[in-house]
């Protein structure tokens, strides 16, 4: 999992550079600091399981096995992109590995994931479907409708809240009457589990249980993963969060990657080597994206 988390981190840092340099345009939401969630969840998934992502989805795709070259090409709007340049950062797709797309609408992907879970049940497959969403997604009614349906129909559905404390500039404490989103599961009679979202092992453990339940036909689970958004919400929005809060979450001991490195007792030289490997893959990805042609006019007319 360390490798996956580091791949996500370095990918996002590269994206940030390219965005600053104007090589990548549009709206970019970085996953830095939240890597443990997608990594821990995907570690419990198979290729034929489904993932439905959000506006902040690069990490979800990398963790599901996404191709860095085609991702980078997508961000540059190239014909070789994983959505052929039609989707961009918020709408990457790779159905061949069960990655069913990012979503620009907060909460919009949740019932879609429900549908994939339904489809698995219908076909008698034991695949499961994961819906990621932020704390902001907890305020969208469709989540509650979906939890009810998933519970009632015992669908292999896993709702993963990436509770990074902010929806754009609005803190959770200002929007949510409840502060523990795992309690939203109770009225529907499904497990709601609060997890340390900066600990990939904790996430993985909870996800593994949820996946096992789902595969066994026992239905849905809601995970509330506590984490923190290290970067600003999006390129265009200045960041005004309290410095103490950022310092606290910024502490090296809180960093999901560093926590994993220490736990695995990876030495700094070993880590540097891993890092270098990933960076060279990223060099290739960027080069691939740069060299790729622009899509032909008309190529998104699905």
């Amino acid at each position, binding site marked *: 999992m360390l490798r996956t988390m580091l791949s996500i981190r370095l990918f996002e840092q590269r994206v940030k550079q390219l965005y600053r340099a104007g090589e990548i345009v549009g709206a970019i939401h970085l996953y830095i600091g939240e890597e443990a969630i997608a990594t821990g969840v995907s570690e419990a998934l198979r290729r034929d399981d489904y993932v439905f992502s959000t506006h902040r989805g690069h990490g979800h795709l990398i963790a599901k096995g996404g191709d860095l070259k085609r991702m980078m090409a997508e961000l540059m709007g190239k014909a070789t992109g994983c959505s052929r340049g*039609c*989707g961009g950062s918020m709408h990457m797709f790779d159905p061949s590995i069960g990655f069913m797309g990012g979503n*620009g609408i907060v909460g*919009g992907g949740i019932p879609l994931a429900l549908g*994939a879970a339904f489809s698995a049940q219908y076909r008698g497959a034991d695949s499961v479907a994961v819906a990621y969403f932020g704390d902001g997604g907890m305020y969208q009614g469709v989540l509650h409708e979906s939890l*009810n349906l998933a519970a009632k129909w015992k669908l292999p559905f896993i709702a993963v809240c990436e509770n990074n404390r902010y929806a754009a500039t609005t803190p959770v404490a200002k929007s949510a009457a409840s502060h523990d989103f795992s309690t939203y599961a109770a009225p529907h009679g499904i497990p709601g589990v609060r997890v340390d979202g900066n600990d990939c092992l904790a996430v993985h453990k909870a996800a593994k249980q949820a996946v096992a339940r789902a595969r066994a036909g026992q239905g849905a689970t809601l995970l509330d993963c506590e984490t923190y958004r290290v970067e600003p919400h999006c390129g265009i929005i200045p960041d005004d969060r309290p410095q103490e809060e950022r310092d606290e979450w910024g502490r090296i001991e809180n960093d999901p990657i560093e926590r994993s490195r220490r736990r695995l007792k990876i030495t700094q030289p070993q880590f540097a080597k891993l890092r270098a490997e990933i960076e060279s893959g990223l060099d290739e990805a960027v080069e691939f994206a740069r060299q790729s042609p622009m899509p032909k006019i008309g190529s998104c007319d699905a």
Partner: protein
Amino acid sequence: MRKLTYIDAIVEAMHEEMARDESVYVIGEDVDIKGGVWKGTVGLLEKFGAKRVRGTPISEAAFTGLATGSAMTGLRPILEIMYMPFCYVAMDQFLNQMAKLPAMSGGQIKLPITIRAQAGAGTREAAQHSQSQEAIFLHIPGFKVVMPATVYDAKGLLKSAIRDDSPVLFIEDRNLYYEPEEVPEGEWLVPLGQADVARTGKDVSVVTLGFPRRKALAAAKQLEGTVDVEVIDARSLEPLDMDTIGASVMKTGRLLVVHEAPVRCGAGAEIVRRVVAEYFDYLDAEPRVLGGANLPLPFSPVLEDACLPQVNDIVNAVRQMA
């Protein structure tokens, strides 16, 4: 020939297509309870079981999204919306998701979804239960749209819709549901994108959407001897059969479009736009649209009737242009 009602034709189409393809299933409110409120799913539960006939709670957004997600992963849902204005509750799932996923994915996602939406007006159910929405689904790219006005077309178009690989909005009119018409035995398809010349004539082309087909035919009958009216039932609004409409206008030089939706930014305006753009030189008079009044439909029968295009209104409009 045999007699069949519009709603039974719909049921028959679903029976045939569900038997033909295991991935076709039905989802919507009450669809698994005695054939649903409109009797539009009679017998399906008994034949295909609860797995393929899914009654839902009143959660249009969730189950519309569910249908879409299931189509992304191999199924072919027939999604029933009990009254068309309830689509609005699920509009993000229709217009931001279903409409856009195929294009945003660069064509990797196909959505073979049929949306059966029960529409129609004149039933004194007031504004929140009666509203034509074809223009919205035509304006926002991503849907095919059909509006059958006969029993034959109901069955044939529904079967084509179910077999199509993109979202098709199939707009039903509850006023047509229960009156039998003659139809052939067995199976047939009506391809998407073909208008039906319901009556030939040489003086004025009247293009209808859905239920007004009947009213236009009645008007044409009344006008017999004075004006020779050609009635074209558009049937399929997207794709739209401009060839048939254009050929008619080239013959008559006069166009009247009739629908129940409000005129402003409606499908009639679009047909006028296209006819004007493509057949301007053939026009002998200004093309016109006769549509619903520009307000939410009132309850009171006298008021509701006054808001909808009636046979007399068509007669008068045709007289004015001929």
